[in-house]
């Protein structure tokens, strides 16, 4: 049965009436203008700018207190349910743990089909058998699997349309990312930075599954940047690319962030900056050619993956209109870059106790604090290994002009140790432990993205693993690691409503509308919860 697929069709496709007949075709034009049809949710981050903002305003600051559960859908057992579902014309499509996927009636939560690509033995996923969601085009959904495959599924039935192997899971190449659809291609990035993979970003033609291009995030011999790796360390250099990027159609550039170099806590064998780990990459959408890169944390020793969502914003910068890229980075700085050329514009710390770097210099390089490297005995460093923030989504609201970021307040003691590379095995170069006697906590914070000034924060008791959504109703929705799904006033951070969903939230909320009602969805444990006004 290895590699076999199971599919349970729970309803006959022909009997399902979608809310807007004749519109089930997802065209590229619709995705380009995704923000203009807020009743749907067409891409992982809501649109190409990755604002995770919705124009829906039915749920607002005065009525959010009345939110009530409308339906729940159970995907699997308790775990880390990281998907952001898509909603397309009345049907919700999501992915679950262990290579699961499903389509449900967005009005009732009733399953239309379920799919699972059965996992082979010994799949190595550092941080859970998770998946973050689908991309869509035409009548198909696209999913990247834990065992290194990329699939196209039929929207109506869950049937596999095509299936390609992108990389060998036995070497710890896994996918957890929600693909990004750009024109006729779907873009995916690989995970495996804990296992010494050589990271890459791939593009596949949506119609055939044929690979259009691959960009290795660790340059090979003869390629620019190869000289930033000592000896053969590039071969196991990591720099995975496991979070969904953003896209600027005018510049035809994909912005895709990368993760830590391997081994993460020991840099002895990988002297140099280790490009393109912990970087923002701007790739030509058609060819995958690198237009520019900016490295946030050169020669990282603290697992400061830069796999956070790039937020694209056109706004004046010191009086001049500019195409900006905002990035709240795991290393504790909030960056502003010029996304036409990668020029560094500013970096403001958003983690008050940050102690690994003094600042980011005018040249865009961190001024690293002496004595912050991991040692055999351990060095207390802030932020800790899970970062000042992480993969979960930020949100930008054009209504408030604020950037919302789920932040962790934790310092760790980092140690290092020599480690031999064994294919498909952990390649960490040691470990971190929480700093003794310091209570870790977290917060949802609102920032002025241009100055980095904190406008408000809503405190979480423990560091978060969930992101946020902002809406035209003036509400920010977010989930914490203690299982609370909250609605906050986007201007003040005031708690408008909260509910305990019974499991840590490892996802970012999304919203859609149907029959004139706005729904807000949060996955937690193994269950999707959909809330609306009564």
């Amino acid at each position, binding site marked *: 049965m290895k590699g076999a697929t199971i599919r349970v069709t729970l309803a006959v496709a022909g009997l399902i009436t979608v809310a807007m007949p004749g519109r089930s075709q997802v065209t590229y034009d619709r995705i380009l203008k995704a923000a203009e049809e807020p009743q749907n949710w067409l891409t992982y981050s809501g649109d190409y700018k990755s604002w995770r903002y919705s124009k829906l305003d039915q749920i607002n600051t005065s009525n959010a207190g009345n939110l009530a559960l409308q339906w729940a859908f159970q995907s699997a057992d*308790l775990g*880390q349910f990281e998907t952001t579902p898509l909603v397309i014309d009345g049907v919700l499509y999501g992915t679950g743990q262990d290579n699961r996927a499903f389509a449900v009636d967005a009005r009732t939560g009733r399953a239309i089909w379920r799919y699972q690509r059965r996992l082979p033995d*010994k799949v190595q996923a550092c*941080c*859970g058998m998770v998946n973050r969601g689908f991309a869509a085009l035409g009548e198909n959904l696209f999913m990247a699997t834990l065992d290194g495959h990329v699939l196209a599924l039929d929207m109506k039935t869950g049937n596999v349309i095509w299936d390609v192997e992108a990389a060998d899971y036995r070497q710890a190449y896994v996918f957890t990312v929600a693909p990004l659809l750009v024109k006729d291609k779907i873009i995916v990035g690989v995970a495996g930075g804990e296992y010494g993979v050589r990271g890459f970003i791939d593009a596949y033609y949506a119609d055939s599954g044929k690979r259009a291009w691959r960009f290795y995030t660790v340059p090979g011999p003869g390629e620019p940047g190869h000289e930033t790796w000592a000896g053969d360390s590039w071969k196991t250099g990591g720099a995975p690319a496991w979070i969904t990027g953003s896209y600027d159609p005018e510049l035809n550039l994909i912005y895709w962030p990368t993760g830590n170099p391997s081994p993460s806590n020991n840099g002895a064998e990988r002297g140099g900056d280790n490009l393109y780990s912990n970087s923002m990459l701007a790739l030509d959408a058609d060819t995958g050619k690198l237009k520019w890169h900016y490295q946030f944390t050169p020669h990282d020793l603290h697992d400061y993956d830069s796999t956070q969502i790039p937020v694209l914003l056109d706004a004046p910068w010191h009086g001049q209109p500019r195409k900006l890229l905002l990035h709240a980075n795991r290393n504790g700085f909030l960056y502003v870059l010029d996304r036409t050329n990668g020029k560094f514009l500013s970096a403001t710390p958003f983690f008050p106790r940050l102690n690994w770097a003094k600042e980011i210099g005018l040249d865009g390089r961190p001024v690293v604090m002496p004595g912050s490297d991991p040692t055999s005995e*351990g060095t207390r460093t802030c932020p800790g290994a*899970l970062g000042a923030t992480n993969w979960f989504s930020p949100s930008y609201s054009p209504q408030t002009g604020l950037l919302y970021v789920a932040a962790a307040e*934790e310092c760790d003691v980092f*140690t290092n*140790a*020599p*480690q*031999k590379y*064994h294919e498909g*095995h*952990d390649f*960490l*170069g*040691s*470990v971190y*432990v*929480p700093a*003794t*006697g310091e*209570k*870790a906590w977290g917060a949802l914070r609102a920032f002025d993205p241009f100055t980095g000034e904190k406008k408000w924060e*809503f*405190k*979480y*008791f*423990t*560091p978060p*693993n969930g992101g946020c959504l902002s809406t035209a109703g003036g509400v920010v929705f977010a989930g*914490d*690691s*203690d*299982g*609370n799904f*909250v609605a906050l006033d986007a201007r003040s951070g005031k708690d408008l409503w*909260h509910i*305990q969903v019974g*499991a*840590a939230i490892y996802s970012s909320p999304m919203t859609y509308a149907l029959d004139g009602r706005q729904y807000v969805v949060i996955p937690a444990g193994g269950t999707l919860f959909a809330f609306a006004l009564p």
Partner: protein
Amino acid sequence: MVTSLAIRFIMWVGSVYLVTCATLALGQETEIKNPLTGDPSAIKEGSSLFRANCSPCHGLNAGGGGRGPDLRGGLWVHGASDAAVFRTISQGVPGTEMPANPFEDSEVWALVAYLRSISAVTKTPVAGDVAEGERFFFGKGACGKCHMVKGRGGRLGPDLTRVGAARSVAYLTESIREPDKDLSLAMSDPNNHYGIPAEYDTVTAVTREGKRVIGVAKNEDAFSLQLLGQDEKLHLFLKKDLREVIHERRSLMPAYTESRLNSQELQNLLAYLTSLRGE
């Protein structure tokens, strides 16, 4: 329900099968020796593997952590032979928090070599009277008011049924004399958020009326607090009803200094505690 019973039956049959296999394996494994014993590079690799994989529970240098025992004492509760330690690492220990681990054989042997290199060769019994220690524990010392041993005792502090297998004499002595010095740290495990970490810090809930309830937090979040009070009652608060929640990084346990516990009593108590191995 039928399905659930059926699954249980299959699991029961499966576990009988596993026990049988383990018993058979046990018979055969007495001769298996670690090929890497004393090998310096294996010990180094084992140390590195230990840090990355085992230290979150057993502590950075195997001295015991929030969930796992001190492994330096030479106790080998689940079997002392090379083969038994190999099995403990690779298959885990049912009924405990020790999981199975998918290491290569060579990696397990490297871990065994590392553990042998840091553990005491023989276990010296603590000089003291076990029965006297037990009398002190449940009598004059009042330890049993807060600690449970084999179902007898209080609930506020950690259960000590297996403490002799988990902690060194030095650690126990420190915990008795200076309980605030090394409070257990709640695990910050990003992949295990369903296990509620055991914390024994002092938490005080102050109600709007000014009433103070002191205890240990069984759980807490942004909106609520589940407090096990010194009265051993569960106090379930909404934070909006509280004036303040005070967290102190200190133990509720008093320090058992010389005036409370003389040297002989300490020896007896240590003899009793180290005899507790869950057997």
